[in-house]
């Protein structure tokens, strides 16, 4: 006997729009501070923070690799802490400070210590996962000025990269810490 099956991810009485659907589609005016600037858009409740940043604000430096919080490509800083933008709704980001890769340095001349270290150490290939690494590492180095190689490896072990084999990313972490230390020394020297 052939096994005849109806396939639909939802029940066959499909035209019914549920309350949850309506809630998800309800529009909200969202204002979020992104890279130091208050940005507003009117978005549905279900709009992911990653899509809000990318498509509403056109900050496409934040990339989406899995949309289930595993790869880390969409990592942004929420009040300074690395956060997966694909696991957060835009409406949840209100009253928070978001920093994307563009906010760390948006031109070659203004690259921060992590971005510069990646360029020096060949820490990226296709560049898709890179913004998630750069934000994560930048946050870590805020309060770890001289990580060991093992600590650097541990630090980046929540982000997937399919190109580099991670070796040069680890090198980049160590170099970024070094650049940051040099900058601090130089600043202190300047003040003295």
């Amino acid at each position: 006997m052939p096994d005849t099956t109806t396939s639909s991810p939802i029940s066959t009485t499909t035209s019914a729009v549920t309350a949850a659907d309506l809630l998800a589609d309800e529009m909200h005016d969202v204002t979020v501070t992104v890279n130091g600037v208050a940005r507003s858009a009117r978005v549905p409740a279900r709009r992911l923070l990653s899509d809000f940043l990318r498509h509403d604000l056109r900050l496409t430096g934040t990339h989406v690799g899995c949309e289930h919080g595993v790869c880390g490509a969409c990592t942004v800083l929420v009040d300074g802490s690395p956060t997966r933008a694909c696991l957060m709704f835009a409406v949840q980001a209100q009253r928070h400070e978001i920093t994307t890769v563009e906010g760390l340095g948006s031109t070659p001349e203004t690259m921060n210590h992590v971005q510069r270290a990646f360029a020096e150490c060949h820490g990226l290939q296709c560049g898709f996962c890179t913004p998630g690494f750069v934000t994560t590492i930048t946050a870590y180095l805020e309060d770890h000025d001289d990580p060991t190689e093992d600590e650097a490896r541990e630090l980046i072990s929540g982000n997937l990269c399919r190109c580099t084999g991670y070796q040069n990313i680890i090198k980049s972490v160590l170099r970024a810490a070094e650049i940051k230390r040099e900058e601090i020394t130089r600043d202190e020297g300047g003040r003295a």
Partner: protein
Amino acid sequence: MTTRQFGAPVQRREDPRLLTGGGRYLDDLGHTAYEAAFVRSPYAHARILEIDTDAAVDVDGVIAIYTHEDLPGAVGEPLPVLIPHPALTAARTGYPLAKGEVNHVGEAVVMVVATNRYVAEDAVDRIVVRYEQLPPVVGIENAREAAHLVHEDAPGNVSAHLVQEVGDVTSAMAGAPHTLTLELDIERSACMPMEGKGVYARWNSDDESLRVYSSTQTSTGVRACVAAKLDLPLAKVECIAPDVGGGFGVKIMHPWPEEVLVPWASRNLDHDVKWTEDRREHFISSAHERGQLQEVTVGFDDEGRMLALDVRFWHDNGAYTPYGIIVPIITATQLLGPYKPGSYRVEFFSLYTNTVLVTPYRGAGRPQGCFAMERTMDAIAAHLGIDRAEVRSRNFIQPDEMPYDHGLMFQDGRPLKYDSGDFPASLAKLKELVGWDDFADYRAQAEAEGRKVGLGIGCYVEGTGVGPYEGGHIQIETNGRVNVATGLTTQGQGHQTSLAQIVADELGVPIENVHVTTGDTRRMAYAVGTFASRAAVMSGNAVALAAKVVRAKALRIAADALEVSPEDLEIEDGVISVKGAPGSSIDLGTIAVMSNPLRYAFDEAAKKATQFAGTFDVEKPPIGDDDEPGLEGQDFYSPTQATFANGMHAAIVETDPVTAEIRILRYCVVHDCGNMINPLIVEGQVHGGVAQGVGGALYERMVYDESGQLLNASFMDFLMPYASEVPFIETDHLETPSPLNPLGIKGAGEAGTIPVTAVIASAIEDAEGFPITSMPISPPELWALRRAHARKDAS
């Protein structure tokens, strides 16, 4: 003095842009485009009885819903068989949207176009498809048994059967003092780039032209397919690969159904349309690779030298064969590695299963071939009690035997003839690097501490830089900017740097002036694509040839202007001067002005080229008979055959005596890709390749259940290595130039991946003392093997 760029570890010129959020990947484009989503088959094998889209039509924001019935003409026909082969007797391809039957979970059945992806997915959820399930064929054994068929008209589930033989294997085997047979098994993995596929199409109804952006490894290939499917003149279609977030092979396959449907929908709706693949879609509708069962019989003498090698393997090609039988052909030919087999017969069956189709993934059939050959080498060594490196060395092709013709046909339809390589030197370097001869002491020390360690080795040869050709086009602007274009695409290999290095040297200009464009059919319409570790070899040599053309033209114009012979001129830092008389000079920007006689001055520099500037000979036409305006030129590189890179890896692993956890303590690579353009980039390619190899050896597998459901179709369940799983990679290089191309280079992209599974199997076997024949291997599997062998030893 211009510093030579070729061979220097130049920092990548694309990086500042990519590091600051300036990359433009497919989904970074087209913010106002309609977006597509697909109803995909939930069954591995089924007949479609009915598609009910009524409930979806009313979803606010839905623009169009398409099923196969809606697809006109060639759009509704089967997708092309890209690489036909005489042995591929039962080639089958899918339709852009399934017609009556589905053959794997994930096959596209209905396309929804909506104002955005959220709405498109809402509509997808409301579409009801009724199926009649058919018996699925899952796994190579079931395909081979053929109790059920994937395609009713492909008997035995066989798409292709191919036998190649060199020498008389039967009699050589009969006369061999020793023979061994190995049965081996490799499971499926996948490229899994961080960016999935994606297509964005912009139909322009005013001039009836189409621009397609695709996250592809071949923009010229996509362009040709789209033009053919949509019945458009080629001149009305342009295809651009924007920044591409990794490919590793899956994006050389084309056209994907979406690459036909999205452009078609854009024209149909007269609106931009975009599709961005999500991760689950990538797992169940993009390609996988690797799955093979192998049976190797080898005959050898008392010294361990092969006399006869007889290989049969069964290759899982998935549901369709649009990419032909390239993967098993590569396994069959590249299996031989650096060795002389004595005599060789290889036979394969490429089999249909109701699973995602199989097309090349970094290494493309070579990891499987290398696994078969290297397991065989270890088996010979164990059988005779000879050192494993020594057995390999006794079977090597020697440097004085190069070029070495195996007598087989390679994946490009041309002879499998190695151009160069020094295998004994590579092995010596590897043994030195890993400390081969000291390992016994290390093991004894570890054993004394209650630890189990093993040393593994794997050697490979990789045919790289296959034809047919690539081109380079170079144009110098009046401000001295050098625009370089090549048609193949970039997915992270750093072509904007490595190709610029080559051009900077050839032209004598600062690298900062050189700007490279890849994968844009507007700039270079003739190209093949980025695969088979071919970009540096093919486009590297093509842009070098193009640079020579432009250099010659620049020198000719300068020689006229300076009233000297071109031979007396040199170019440095973008300035042409008379050798020994640096005062007499002219910069390339000015030559560019002079090369283009003008009527209209568009800027200050251009005034010099206008008709009343008095800078020309009135007796001569402004453009000579055999000349063209502009300081530009192009050339193509087309080799007679592939160039063969090689390498050898060794690893030390530790296996936990209790939990069977497997840890790689050291990983050593010796790699020979001829002359290196940029050692920084080569090194990076090797690292990334090894990491993917480690994934394939220890973690990654596509777990299908018996009904053809992919059980681990997410990053939660499909285990790709994080930094915590990839060992520190120690590398050393040999540079044996290729005699086949002017730059002496060989490809490097895939090398790192090829031997890893073989090396790790070898090391685990060495640690454990029983054969490892099936990869990848997990701690539970190793633990079960230990138990099985302990029982066998006890009985």
